[in-house]
């Protein structure tokens, strides 16, 4: 390849990157919907498949078929829910926080965004979300973080994930970085993490629509940055339900060119 051709390719790649960046970051300003209202998005009684309440400190493992959704409700407003998940047919494909933030040009996810796997496919769509305050950078609690926070090791997300993984034949090697819902983490100019308690309300919920067959673990433990002493963690309600089939104008499927491609690659699994 001649030097000139190489230079031309580099310049074309830079132009494409700048165009994608501009489009991706403008989306956050004008294209994303308002959060779901706290009393919005009712689930029809006949769409509910299963409902359970998870006490503070505990976890639940759920299998979701493509097209089913999981509503997670922070009943008390004091909980955060750490989430990991694997593709049921090949558990080496799993939640990937890095690709989720990189592809969507944002470390913040909210209604209309997706959670991606490491294989360029969509695991979960945030089809409803009252909160928009979720963390993908800091992760869940651990034995060490609870000892530092509470003076004693308490139930924690790391050990919940280990236990949940073990019950489906997986182990520590299968546990990726997690998404934590209802965890209002932001950054100051120096890159230090901040906790924004005014962004948590009783009854906050998300609806996560499965875009492939999944095994999900939800751990209901205080986020390591949550300053409440003692921990304010209350029960959370999980409602597995049949989501309305996505239309051509589905919010998540059409949010951006990147999202559209990730859905196209996901659909091929089922074509």
């Amino acid at each position, binding site marked *: 390849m001649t030097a000139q051709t190489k230079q031309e390719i580099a310049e074309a790649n830079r132009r494409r990157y700048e165009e994608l960046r501009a489009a991706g970051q403008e989306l956050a300003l004008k294209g994303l919907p308002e959060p779901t209202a706290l009393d919005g998005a009712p689930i029809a009684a006949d769409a509910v498949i299963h409902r359970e309440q998870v006490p503070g400190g505990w976890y639940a493992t759920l299998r979701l078929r493509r097209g089913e959704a999981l509503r997670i409700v922070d009943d008390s407003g004091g909980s955060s829910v750490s989430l990991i998940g694997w593709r049921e047919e090949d558990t080496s494909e799993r939640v*990937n926080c*890095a690709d989720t933030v990189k592809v969507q040009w944002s*470390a913040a996810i909210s209604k209309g965004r997706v959670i991606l796997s490491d294989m360029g496919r969509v695991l979960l769509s945030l089809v409803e979300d009252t909160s928009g305050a979720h963390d993908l950078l800091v992760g869940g609690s651990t034995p060490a973080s609870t000892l530092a926070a509470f003076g004693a090791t308490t139930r924690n997300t790391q050990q919940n994930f280990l236990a949940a993984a073990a019950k489906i034949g997986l182990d520590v090697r*299968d546990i990726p*970085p997690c998404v934590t819902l209802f965890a209002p983490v932001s950054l100051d100019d120096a*890159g230090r993490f901040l906790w924004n308690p005014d962004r948590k309300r009783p009854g906050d919920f998300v609806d996560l629509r499965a875009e492939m067959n999944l095994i999900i673990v939800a751990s209901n433990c205080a986020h*390591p940055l949550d300053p409440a002493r003692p921990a304010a963690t209350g029960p959370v309600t999980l409602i597995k339900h049949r989501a309305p089939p996505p239309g051509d104008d589905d919010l998540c499927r059409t949010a951006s060119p*990147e999202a559209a*491609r990730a859905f196209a690659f996901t659909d091929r699994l089922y074509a």
Partner: protein
Amino acid sequence: MTSISDGAYACDIPAERPWSHVLRKGQTLRIIDSEGQQAVDALLYCADDPAERYSSQDTLRVQGSAYIELGTRLISNKGRVMARITADSCGRHDTSAGCCSCESNAVRFGEATKYQHACRENFILELSKHGLTKRDIVSNLNFFMNVPIDASGKFTVVDGISAPGNYVEVTAEMDVLFVISNCPQVNNPCNGFNPTPIRVEIRDTPGL
């Protein structure tokens, strides 16, 4: 591989290639961005038990901030300090953006880019020498990669800020398998759209 003095080690890693080496406790690895603006993706595993490995989220949680800098302790998924950043002539490094893969490139930049070499291909091949697989790949370190995150969460890979010869040093606090992918990405500015060679040097660290 070149032996540079008693027990010391140095290696020039060509553009787009992987590398791995066991760093003994107390040894220091210097990673040199030989020509500048080159992202270096890195993973660490406990040499005695690779199920214990570098954890980006544990590292950021313990530090309380979002970037890898001088003094950062690299924390494992078991909460132990694996290594520390003991020298840095560049300034700021990422650990939230992960590595590039054929699959994520196709999503980010269009399907044609699926058939370009990527860090995850490097990691899979290099890890296979040590009995590890894709399953063992977690969110990695990106040395010399500039990924500012703003207050609203906006997340951008911007031009690499490292100059030719900039380096970062990592001192091991346990025996660690250190795995590098010299990033082949040509679709964003992390390598200045031109992947280049890097150099690694290992030495014993007196006083540790």
